């Protein structure tokens, strides 16, 4: 629990560095989209590379126990597809709407983040209902 709090603070500082430094919102889904299909800006690419590198350092320093789920490759692909459509329509994901949007008290982001959780919990319960 203490680690979750510390990690949250660190993530918040990371997002704040982007805002204080270059005035940008730390949206990861949006940055992936912009790098591939949009403005192709270098700062976004560097931002994404930083996250990837942090993951690599974490994997080397103290490897997470469960990097994968029980889901089949088809299930993961379906989830990725839905997530990609969703994050574009909503114009934000857990970082842009969740971390930054909640922090800057944006009504759109509060609605989006609440719906992320409502749909996520509903899906979890529905999957359990179907699979027993």
């Amino acid at each position, binding site marked *: 629990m203490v680690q979750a*709090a510390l990690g949250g603070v660190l993530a918040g500082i990371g997002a704040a560095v982007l805002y204080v430094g270059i005035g940008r*919102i730390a949206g990861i889904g949006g940055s992936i989209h912009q790098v591939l299909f949009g403005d192709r800006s270098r700062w976004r690419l560097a931002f994404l590379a930083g996250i990837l590198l942090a993951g690599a350092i974490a994997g080397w320093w103290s490897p997470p126990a469960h990097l994968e789920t029980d889901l089949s490759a088809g299930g993961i692909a379906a989830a990725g*597809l839905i997530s990609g459509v969703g994050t574009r329509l909503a114009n934000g994901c857990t970082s842009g709407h969740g*971390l*930054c949007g909640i*922090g800057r008290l944006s009504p759109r982001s509060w609605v989006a983040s609440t719906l992320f959780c409502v749909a996520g919990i509903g899906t979890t319960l529905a999957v*359990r209902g179907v699979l027993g």
Partner: protein
Amino acid sequence: MKSLIAGLAGLLLGGGLAVAGLLEPSAIQGALDPFGAFDPRLYIALICGTTVYGVIRWFARRRGAPGFDTRFHDPTSTVIDRQLVLGSLLFGVAWGLSGFCPGLALGNLGAGGGQALVFLAALVVGMGAVGGLDLESTPQEGASAAGFGLGELAADTITLDRIGGRNGRT
């Protein structure tokens, strides 16, 4: 310089996710399972992260401008439309199904996760499908499943983009 700052920001944000234990999709699955093996770490991290971010942002805005740009690029839209609602619900469904979101997947991939690569590849296809519809072109090959039935939404997207500007809606 901008790229250097952005790289540092990504490193800190990704490091935060790792420290919080949020590179593991099982942590998200636990957070979205309040009646089962509930895992509160996501919410604890979010409360701490948003508070820190909100406070630093408030002080930064009082200074007037960011260190290495002429202005702050905040999203301007305040419209809560059905595109936001539908997109958020879809995003949540995928989150609940898999435990993956774009940020977690990217950090997870860095740590060596194989499923994250599949998730990210499909994510990009999904994004491309919406982008393709945005421009009133046919969805790209391989994206037809996601593109099916989204024509009506695409019309909304175009209208809103003209009003609000493409980057003004986080």
